[in-house]
């Protein structure tokens, strides 16, 4: 039913429908999700938020056509309309958006004039509905009164002169009926006259007088003339009746298509009281577009009642949508409220319930609608940071808003862009300009506002100025200022263009990283044991310098060595004294110093090895 109503709406608007649907199926530059992902099924990837048709039109059944145009078909499962082989989200179409926004930002028509208009229309509807049920005929006077009332209502701006058109229809039909009745009376009078002439002629023939022959001939001629007049009047009646019906029905269908459902209902229910012949069939050309459209609703030949049914269903549907809007707003379900309001406005923007929807409700829906539109814009602009922000706001506004699709889509694109930047950096390090340019372009295309692009720009700058950087690197490496290189490693990444420098660069990074990791570990050890911790740290540093002699030039290493030497002063002093004693060949004192160091840190490898060495010398000497 909903589908039928919207189908009627979209097709009936004629030019509106034509404007709403993009005629040229221009494919979008990049596939995008729907603006309201919560409402769009993920299984519909061909849905295009820009309103462009889907890529696979052949998969869809052909829609019926009306007035040379394809009728859009609504799919209630996802609120999309199939048209011209494409699928469109009703909420995303440009014209629907524009009309809906105009409605949201308009003021409710709560004037007294509109209220009175509504009352009078309801009164007329009630009156004709009563006679429709009771099967009583509405007299000419009552019809004239309805016409007069409708004429007066046509002055109200809300009506848009449609009541006047309806009144004219009724009056024109009544005029046609009146003229037909006059012709039928005329035919009756002619019939009586012909009867009289026939009797007179018959009597003249019986008298057999030759003088009567002229009179007989005259009467015969008059009878023939009268019969011709009767036939002419009868033909005129038939023609007039048909013209009146076609005119009336045409306006009735027009009201339906113009979404003036009240007028369509009044016209259809007054119809049988204007035309008493009991013929309710629509006088439209067989198999014409309009005929096919009305047949498509029931599959049977269209009648006046078909129009009545469609108009009533539309009215009911709009009222239900508006009830749902109020209910959803009360529950803070703005997404659902917005969807219902869009459909209510699209189907029956002239209905009183839609026109009088209060400002506060419109403001809340407008706020949500604006966010939804901004989400669409942000997706089109590929500003995924903004998408995340908007999703959060929509979630805050609507308790039922499902932000998972927006967020997952956004996160996916962000990761994709970051991956491209990573690949670009690799290409930069490998000296591959072409690959670098390709990856950076791709990253920018996927997420133009990716903040990591700025960092890449710096890399590119460094890449451009690499000759001076290479020279600086060589100088620093020769001076063994590894930590300076390490601190500015991103700037020096470009040295990778030279294989030899690349190896040196990797070496520097490895050495300093290892030292830093070791220093961090030793810091923790020294913290845990404040007595022996510094001894352990000092000894580890000294031992490391034997395996990695380059560390002794590192300021970080030197600082740490000094620090722990200070903290483990006695231990370090004992070791140093032992070495000094060894130099003076005072091996007894040297051994005593090593013993002292072992007393302070029994597990000391340096002291243990020193003591062992000196002991050996002492024992082997000759005294």
């Amino acid at each position: 039913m909903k589908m039928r109503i919207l189908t009627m709406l979209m097709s009936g608007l004629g030019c509106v429908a034509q404007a709403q649907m993009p005629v040229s199926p221009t494919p979008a530059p990049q596939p995008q999700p729907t603006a309201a992902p919560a409402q769009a099924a993920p299984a519909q990837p061909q849905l295009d938020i820009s309103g462009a048709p889907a890529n696979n039109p052949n998969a869809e059944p052909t829609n019926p056509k009306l007035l040379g145009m394809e009728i859009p078909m609504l799919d209630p499962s996802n609120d999309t309309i199939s048209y011209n082989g494409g699928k469109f989200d009703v909420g995303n179409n440009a014209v629907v958006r524009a009309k809906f926004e105009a409605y949201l930002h308009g003021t409710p028509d709560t004037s007294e004039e509109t209220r009175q208009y509504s009352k009078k229309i309801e009164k007329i509807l009630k009156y004709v509905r009563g006679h429709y049920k009771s099967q009583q005929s509405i007299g000419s006077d009552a019809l004239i009164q309805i016409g007069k009332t409708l004429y007066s209502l046509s002055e109200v701006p809300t009506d848009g002169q449609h009541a006047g058109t309806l009144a004219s229809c009724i009056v024109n039909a009544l005029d046609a009926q009146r003229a037909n009745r006059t012709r039928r009376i005329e035919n009756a009078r002619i019939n009586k006259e012909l009867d009289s002439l026939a009797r007179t002629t018959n009597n003249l023939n019986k008298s057999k007088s030759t003088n009567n022959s002229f009179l007989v001939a005259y009467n015969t001629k008059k009878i023939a003339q009268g019969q011709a007049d009767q036939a002419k009047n009868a033909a005129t009646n038939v023609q007039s009746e048909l013209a009146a019906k076609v005119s009336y029905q045409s306006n009735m269908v027009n009201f339906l298509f113009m979404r003036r459902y009240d007028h369509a209902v009044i016209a259809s229910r007054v119809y049988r009281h204007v035309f008493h012949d009991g013929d309710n069939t629509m006088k439209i050309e067989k198999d014409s577009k309009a005929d096919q459209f009305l047949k498509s609703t029931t599959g049977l030949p269209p009648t006046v009642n078909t129009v009545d049914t469609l108009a009533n269903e539309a009215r009911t549907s709009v009222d239900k949508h508006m009830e749902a809007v109020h209910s959803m707003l009360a529950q803070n379900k703005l997404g659902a409220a917005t969807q219902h309001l869009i459909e209510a406005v699209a189907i029956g923007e002239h209905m009183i319930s839609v026109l009088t929807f209060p400002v506060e409700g419109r403001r809340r829906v407008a706020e949500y609608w604006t966010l939804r539109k901004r989400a669409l814009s942000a997706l089109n602009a590929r500003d995924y940071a903004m998408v995340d922000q908007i999703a959060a706001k929509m979630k805050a506004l609507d308790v039922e808003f499902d932000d998972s699709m927006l967020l997952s889509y956004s996160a996916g694109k962000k990761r994709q862009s970051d991956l491209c930047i990573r690949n670009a950096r690799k290409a930069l390090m490998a000296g591959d300009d072409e690959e670098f340019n390709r990856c950076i372009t791709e990253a920018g295309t996927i997420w133009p506002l990716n903040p990591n692009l700025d960092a890449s720009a710096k890399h590119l700058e460094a890449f451009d100025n690499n000759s001076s950087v290479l020279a600086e690197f060589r100088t620093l490496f020769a001076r063994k200022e590894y930590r300076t290189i390490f601190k500015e490693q991103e700037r020096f990444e470009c040295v990778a263009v030279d294989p030899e420098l690349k190896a040196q660069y990797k070496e520097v990074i490895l050495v300093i990283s290892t030292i830093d990791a070791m220093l961090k570990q030793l810091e923790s050890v020294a913290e845990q044991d404040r007595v022996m911790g510094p001894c352990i740290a000092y000894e580890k540093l000294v031992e490391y310098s034997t395996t990695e002699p380059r560390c002794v030039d590192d300021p970080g290493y030197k600082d740490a060595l000094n620090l722990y030497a200070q903290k483990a002063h006695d231990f370090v002093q004992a070791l140093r004294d032992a070495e000094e004693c060894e130099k003076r060949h005072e091996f007894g004192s040297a051994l005593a110093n090593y013993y002292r160091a072992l007393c302070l840190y029994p597990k000391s490898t340096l002291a243990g090895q020193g003591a062992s060495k000196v002991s050996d010398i002492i024992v082997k000497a000759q005294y």
Partner: protein
Amino acid sequence: MVIGVVVLLAGVGFFFASPSGKRSSGKPQDFSIREYRNDGSRMAVPGNRYLLEGRVENIETIGNSRIVAVSLKNNRNERLPLLVSKDTILKVNLTRKDSFLFEVECRTGRDSSGNEVKGILVVKNAESTK
């Protein structure tokens, strides 16, 4: 005559003041391991003899010789290395954690290359303090 008497007295005095007997007065002496560590050349004059009471903290055997780490009464946190040469036969068996009275002599030796090995305290005798 007088000169002859003076020379004789001096000779007797020198005999009694010889290194082996100079500080071996029979009582344990104060010995600063710290000073020995810091200034071995002053403390360990070759030929000086010391009588030290100390506790054996560690014994390291290298070949047939031993190096005994001894802590003295005045400073238990220091260890004094004493060499017990393979040629020295002691009256007692040195055991860890036991205290002994060591009679030591400061010596300077030479290694196989002829280099000096200064300030080594060589144990001449040891007695148990128990």
